[in-house]
Structures are given as C-alpha cells and as structure tokens.
C-alpha cells in the first residue's frame, strides 16, 4: 500500500468513526433548530426574514462547526492514545505523518457532510420564506465557512499532538477568537505609539490564521457571492496554512513516545 492509499484508508475509518459520535448529531440538530427558529424570529424583523435566517443560520453553522472542529479534532489523536490503539496502528507500516494527514482528512470529510446538511437546512428555510436567489447565493459563504473550519481543525490537531484535550480545546478556541480579529488588532496597534506593540501585533497577525478572510456572512445576507479571486485566495491561504500546521503536527507526533 502506498502513502496515498494509507492516508485514504485512515481518512475513511476516521469518517466512519466520527459519524457515529452522538455529539455531532446533537450539534447539527441544534443548528437546524436554530435555523427553523429564525423563521419565527423573522416575524419580529418587519420584513427581514430572509436576512435573519441567513445571519442566524450561518452564524450558528460557524459557531457550532467550530465546536465540532475543536472538540472532535482534539480527541482524534488523544482517543487513539487513550485506547492504546496507536500501538496496533503503528505496528503496521504506517508513518506518523500519514496517520495525522489521514485523521485530518477524515475529520474534514465529516465536517463537509455536516456543513452540507446544515447548509441545506438554511436553504430550505430561505425557500420557505421566499428568500429568492439567497437560497443559492449563500453557498459561497458556506464554502468559506468550511475552509475556515478546515484551518481550525488543523489547529486543534496540532495542539492535541502535544497537549491534553482540555488545554488543546481551550487553545484552539482562543485561536478561533483571535484569528477573527487579528486584522482589527493590527489596525488598533498601528495607532499605538509603542513600536514593540506594533511589532508584537504584526507578528501575531502573520503567525496566527487570519480567519476574517473567511467572514462573509453579513455580505451573504445581502445576496453577495464571494468573488472568484477572494475564494481562490482563501483556498490557497487555507492550503498553505494547513500544510504548515500538519507538517508541524507530524514532526511533533513523530517524536512522541507512547510508552
């Protein structure tokens, strides 16, 4: 079996295991409930039902998608270690890097399925209230949300490769928060006098993932479709960043002693 086959086998098994996780179903169900409630909430918005559904539905998708990415992501590796199945896995000719990439791709596939289900829920809600072209135009924003979650998953896996699940989840959540306003922090720092502060925030801006590149929910509520340049750039950014994270994770993981 070559590396690609190994990776896909691990990814497939990871996907199968992840879809059995009840927490996943509850989170997806919760998002669908929130989307449905947006229909009723829309009655308080004087004719802005479609906008409310998009804002609430996609925001819930992002938030709960982040929970899925973080909590499933941090447990991907730690579960194998706890159950001691890592010994069985690495007794076979499977590289640590292949294992990490396979696990990561499996979770991304799980996320994709969840995002698709939630996205269909939002589209159906929009169709119900007569949302017109919004039913289709939101999928650009949904794709960007998916890309953001793939980055967050890689972050979660990185932390879980050297830290406890609880701490990893906390750190990944901080990265999610800071990643969204790192651009604003940089602007804020530019107005400060101290060059050290400016340097610090500049470094933070480039090292941490800039998740604001993937924020398109408010625009989607106005029927905007992300331009091809933006989507292309976001995909490349995600790919590069994920490569960095997975390589670092593989390096850390390859030095880890499970005994």
């Amino acid at each position, binding site marked *: 079996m070559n590396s690609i086959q190994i990776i896909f086998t691990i990814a497939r098994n990871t996907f199968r295991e992840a879809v059995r996780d009840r927490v996943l179903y509850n989170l997806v169900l919760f998002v669908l409930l929130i989307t449905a409630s947006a229909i009723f909430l829309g009655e308080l918005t004087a004719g802005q039902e479609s906008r409310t559904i998009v804002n609430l539905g996609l925001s819930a998708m*992002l938030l709960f998608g982040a929970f899925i990415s973080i909590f499933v992501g941090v447990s991907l590796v730690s579960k194998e270690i706890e159950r001691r199945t890592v010994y069985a896995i690495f007794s076979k000719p499977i590289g640590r890097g292949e294992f990490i990439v396979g696990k990561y791709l499996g979770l991304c596939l799980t996320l994709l399925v969840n995002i698709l289900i939630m996205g269909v829920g939002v589209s159906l809600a929009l169709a119900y209230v007569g949302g017109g072209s919004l039913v289709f135009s939101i999928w650009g924003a949904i794709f960007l949300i998916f890309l953001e979650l793939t980055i967050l998953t890689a972050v979660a896996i990185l932390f879980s490769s050297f830290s406890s699940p609880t701490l990893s989840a906390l750190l990944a959540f901080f990265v999610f928060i800071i990643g969204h306003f790192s651009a604003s922090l940089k602007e804020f720092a530019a107005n400060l006098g101290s060059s050290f502060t400016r340097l610090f925030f500049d470094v933070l801006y480039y090292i941490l993932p800039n998740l604001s590149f993937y924020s398109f*929910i408010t625009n989607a509520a106005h029927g905007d479709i992300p331009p091809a340049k933006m989507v292309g750039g976001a995909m490349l950014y995600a790919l590069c960043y994920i490569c960095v994270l997975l390589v670092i994770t593989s390096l850390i993981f390859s030095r880890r002693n499970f005994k």
Partner: protein
Amino acid sequence: MKKGSTGQMFFALAVIVCSFAAVFGLSRFLEANRPALPVGFEDEDLALQGARLKGYALGFEGLIADWYWMKSLQYIGDKIVNTEKAIRIDDMRELNPRLLYPYLDNATALDPRFISVYEYGATVLPAIDNEQAVKLGEKGIKDNPNEWRLYHYLGFTYWRLKDYEKAADVYGRGSQIDGAPDFMRLMAAKMKSEGGSREIARAIYRQMFDEAGDAKLKESAALRLLELDSLDERDAIQTVLQEFQSRNNRCANNWREILPLLQTVKLPNAKNFRVNKSNELIDPTDTPYILDRAVCTVKLDTAKTKIPLK
C-alpha cells in the same frame, strides 16, 4: 425486577416530581416578588455601544445588527403598547423614543448596507429629532453612495423638514445614480419651486408606498395619500359650499343640499366623492365629514377619522 430497585425508582421519580413542582412554584413566587425596576429604566442606554464591536464580532456583525434592528422595533412597539393614545409611525414625539436613534445607528454601524434601517429612520426620526434624522441619512449615503434609495430617504427627510433646497440637491445627486427611477429626476426638477405642493407630496408618498418593505411604513404612506385626497375633497367641498352660500344667502343645512353641485366637480387623479348610506359625505377613511354651519366650512371628524391630523 428486585423490590429494592423498584423502591429506588419510585423514590427517584417522587424526588423529581416534587422538585419540579417546587421549581414551578418558586418561579412564580420569584417573578411576583421581583423588585420593580426604576422608572424610566427602559430608556437607559445599557447596550448602545455595539458599534465598537465592529471588527471584533467574529464575523457576526450582521447578526448583531439584526439584534439592534429587532430591539429598535420592540422598543417602539413596547412604547406604543404601553401608551393609551393612538400613535402614528411617522409622528412618535409623544413616546419620547430616546433610544431609537442609537439602536438604528448601531445597526447601521455594524452593517452599513442594512437599507431597511435607513428607510425606517427616514420615516420615523424627522418627527422626533431633525438632526438625528439627517445624520442617519447622510451616513447611509456615505456608506452606500450608489444606492439611489438612500438619496430618496434623505431627500424625503429634508422635504418633511420643509428644507426644499437641500431636498432638491439630494434628489439631484440621487438621480445621477444608475438605476434611479424617473421619480428622482422629477423631484430634483420640481422640489425647489413646488416643494410644498400636493403634487410633490403625492409623488413622494406614492413612491414610499410602492417601495416600502415594512407593513407599517406602507400603512403610513397610504394614510398620507388618503390625507392628500381628503385635502382635495375638502377644497372642492369648500368651494361648493361658498358657491351655495353666495347663491342662497345661507349655508347648506346638510350635505344632501350640495350633492348635486358636487357631482359637477372633478377631483384630481380621477377620484370621486363618496357618500354613506345616510347620504353623508365621507372622507377617504369612510368617516363622515362634519359640516360646521356656524362658519360654513367642512371639517374632519377628528375623533373618528384615520386621516393624519398633523
């Protein structure tokens, strides 16, 4: 099943039922004994710095803008419900809605393309605070320079404030925008010279009625159109009353006496006079006009009519 475990099950169920019953009772007790909030609390601006969240809201700015929008509607709705008077959406001075502008301002700060907020502000704010109304309108145009509707809303605001020159200027700017309807050019051309005319008012309210997404705003525009129709009717009725008086040296005793004369009068916009089953002349909201024989004039029944009185 063992006796012991059955007993435990029943005990557990009993505890659950009793505890829930206690929670239910305690909830009602606590609600009834909650200390009253200070008078005017509903007007305290506790959460009105939302605009500062821009850039820090994790991409949820639109959702928070929606929240401010809903809060503004609820805020006005609560004030209307709690007042005993009939309040029109375009004249809410009596409610003193102090927080309305901050709510609308925050909504548009977080989502500058939230056009409905500007539309609502243009209808509601001029009667409350001129400066705030203009400020919101100017902000909308600054953030959305290619949205012709915003020029219309600001022009409408200036028109309501009777600043016809500024209204004409704004309509002129808006008429240059791609996709702006002929209405904007008409307003730009006629506003300076005819800003106070009924023709302009009718065109503006007709446009507001056609464009309004909100039912309340539509209703407000419809009532204003009916008001204009009523003004035309009253002018025509007054002319006929004066004609009758000059012919007969007395005022008409009732509407029946002048109905034949009214049939020869043509109202603008192909409208017709209407009478009810008692042969009383009725206004566009189906309320009978009052004939004030003392001064021989026609008046609205201010107690019953839905026609705006201001």
